[in-house]
């Protein structure tokens, strides 16, 4: 009777390039293989293979997808816990295994692991600490021991020069949310069997939705340690384990399931209502009129430059055009320069950059100065004449002077000058459809009470147009 055999969660053959379709690509005696075997066995034992998504790191275990017959995402270096977080938002019941080396998790990926732990993401992290960068040929890792010779510490790591080894289990233990933190070692048979129990618990926690479990696995890299596999395991006991004690740091697996903060399911209109003041882009047929408008709206931050751009882009989409919106603003939210480029066209748009506008809406003086000369001959320049004293010098463009800020001030909210300019622009171009504007407006106005005010300003702008410009 067979009592132990290749776990069924492994593929029968490992379809990869080069030799050996039934063996791993790992060096003889590498700890990754042992860790994989423990995990593969548990996937079957816990009956979770079908819903497991294995997150491969960058490092020697990058090819884990060759071996385990589960879902897999090969993540950018250090990002596996962030990728797992993303999956968790849409797959409540997936089993997420973030399997990461010490270069991956403790160097380039420190931000991701700390914040995933801090959020208590329901996932299981297997952190393979082999005190070195294996895949790239044996450079120092954050976990490399004092005095340990590596490719990048040929004299031996020196804390003064290279910093001290980091105990990631200890770092995790400084964070409140993780439910389970333990360090294990693959140095002896007894410790391998113990590791199996710990792996199992770390996975069971996830099945039970208990939250974030972190298992640090001391693991041999005989090749880069320049030892034979048996010697490497003795070295672990003599040198690695004294610095990185093999023990449990936290076990909250008996605690009740933390409450579920999942975002409730929402219908599309509920989401739109939550994020905007209602309103929606109606389904439309593509516009047939041949048109390309490259609009630059510019002013100070706070003048509603960016939101006017969004409104215009949404309106264009609702009218059946392709549209892009590209904001540009300084570090300051208010007072600094801001501009938005909107392109809309019945053709597809290559780049959203508006370098040569055919419409410039200048809400203040510096905007006119900056962009006047960029406008395409035959284009349109609209000037907020309340704030812009100078005249447009170009004589090869259409120019409209609108006292927009004055009109806005009369109705009490200066920041509605943007809507006035935009409405007049659309009307002037024969593109204004007031009904459609009404529908789209709430999408780009955050506050409900501002919707009415903006609608009023639209009416005012249309009346102005009929009176002064028609």
């Amino acid at each position, binding site marked *: 009777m067979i009592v132990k*055999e290749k776990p069924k969660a492994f593929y029968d053959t490992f379809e990869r390039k080069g030799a050996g379709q039934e063996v791993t690509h790992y060096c003889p*005696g590498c700890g990754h293989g042992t860790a994989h*075997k423990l995990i593969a066995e548990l996937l079957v034992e816990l009956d979770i293979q079908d819903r497991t998504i294995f997150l491969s790191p960058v490092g020697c275990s990058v090819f884990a997808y060759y071996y385990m017959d589960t879902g897999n995402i090969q993540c950018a270096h250090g990002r596996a816990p962030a990728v797992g977080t993303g999956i968790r938002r849409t797959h409540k019941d997936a089993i997420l295994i973030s399997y990461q080396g010490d270069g991956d998790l403790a160097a380039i990926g420190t931000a991701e692991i700390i914040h995933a732990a801090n959020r208590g993401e329901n996932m299981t992290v297997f952190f393979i600490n082999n005190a070195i960068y294996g895949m790239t040929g044996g450079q120092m890792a954050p976990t490399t021991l004092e005095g340990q010779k590596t490719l990048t510490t040929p004299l031996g790591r020196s804390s003064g020069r290279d910093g001290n080894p980091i105990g990631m289990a200890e770092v995790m233990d400084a964070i409140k949310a993780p439910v389970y933190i333990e360090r294990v070692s693959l140095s002896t048979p007894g410790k391998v069997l113990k590791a199996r129990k710990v792996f199992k618990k770390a996975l069971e926690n996830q099945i039970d939705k208990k939250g974030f479990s972190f298992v640090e696995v001391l693991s041999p890299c005989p090749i880069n340690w320049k030892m034979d596999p048996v010697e490497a*395991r003795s070295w672990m006991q003599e040198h690695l384990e004294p610095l990185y004690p093999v023990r449990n740091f936290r076990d909250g697996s008996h605690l009740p399931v933390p409450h579920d903060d999942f975002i409730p399911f929402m219908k599309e209109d509920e989401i739109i209502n939550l994020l905007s003041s209602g309103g929606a882009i109606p389904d439309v047929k593509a516009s047939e009129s041949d048109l390309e408008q490259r609009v630059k709206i510019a002013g100070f931050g706070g003048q509603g430059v960016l939101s006017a751009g969004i409104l215009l882009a949404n309106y264009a989409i609702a009218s059946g055009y392709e549209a892009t919106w590209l904001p540009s603003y300084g570090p300051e939210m208010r007072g600094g320069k801001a501009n938005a480029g909107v392109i809309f066209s019945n053709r597809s748009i290559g780049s959203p950059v508006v370098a040569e506008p055919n419409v410039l809406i200048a809400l203040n003086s510096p905007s006119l100065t900056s962009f006047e000369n960029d406008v395409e001959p035959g284009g349109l320049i609209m000037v907020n004449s309340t704030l812009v004293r100078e005249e447009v010098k170009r004589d090869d463009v259409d120019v409209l002077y609108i006292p927009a800020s004055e009109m806005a001030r009369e109705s009490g909210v200066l920041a509605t000058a943007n809507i006035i300019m935009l409405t007049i622009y659309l009307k002037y171009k024969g593109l204004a459809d007031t009904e459609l504007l009404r529908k789209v407006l709430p999408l780009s106005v955050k506050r409900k009470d501002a919707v009415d005010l903006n609608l009023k300003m639209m009416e005012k702008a249309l009346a102005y147009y009929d009176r002064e410009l028609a």
Partner: protein
Amino acid sequence: MNRSVIEADLCKGCRVCVNSCPNHCLSIGSEINRLGYQYARSTPEKCTACGICFYVCPEPGAITVYKGEAPDVK
């Protein structure tokens, strides 16, 4: 008889199992396998089918442990 059966062409000759078997059932032979390694061999006499060699071995399919009836291998 119990036995740990080693698949010659799946073994990388790392000796970890040899060094771990409490009953000294395993050794590295002199023959070279398809991968170019001198691979591990087992003897059934003292094997208790404890599974230790299986767990410490890094290769997924190199070791199968039988309790009682084991296939005949060299």
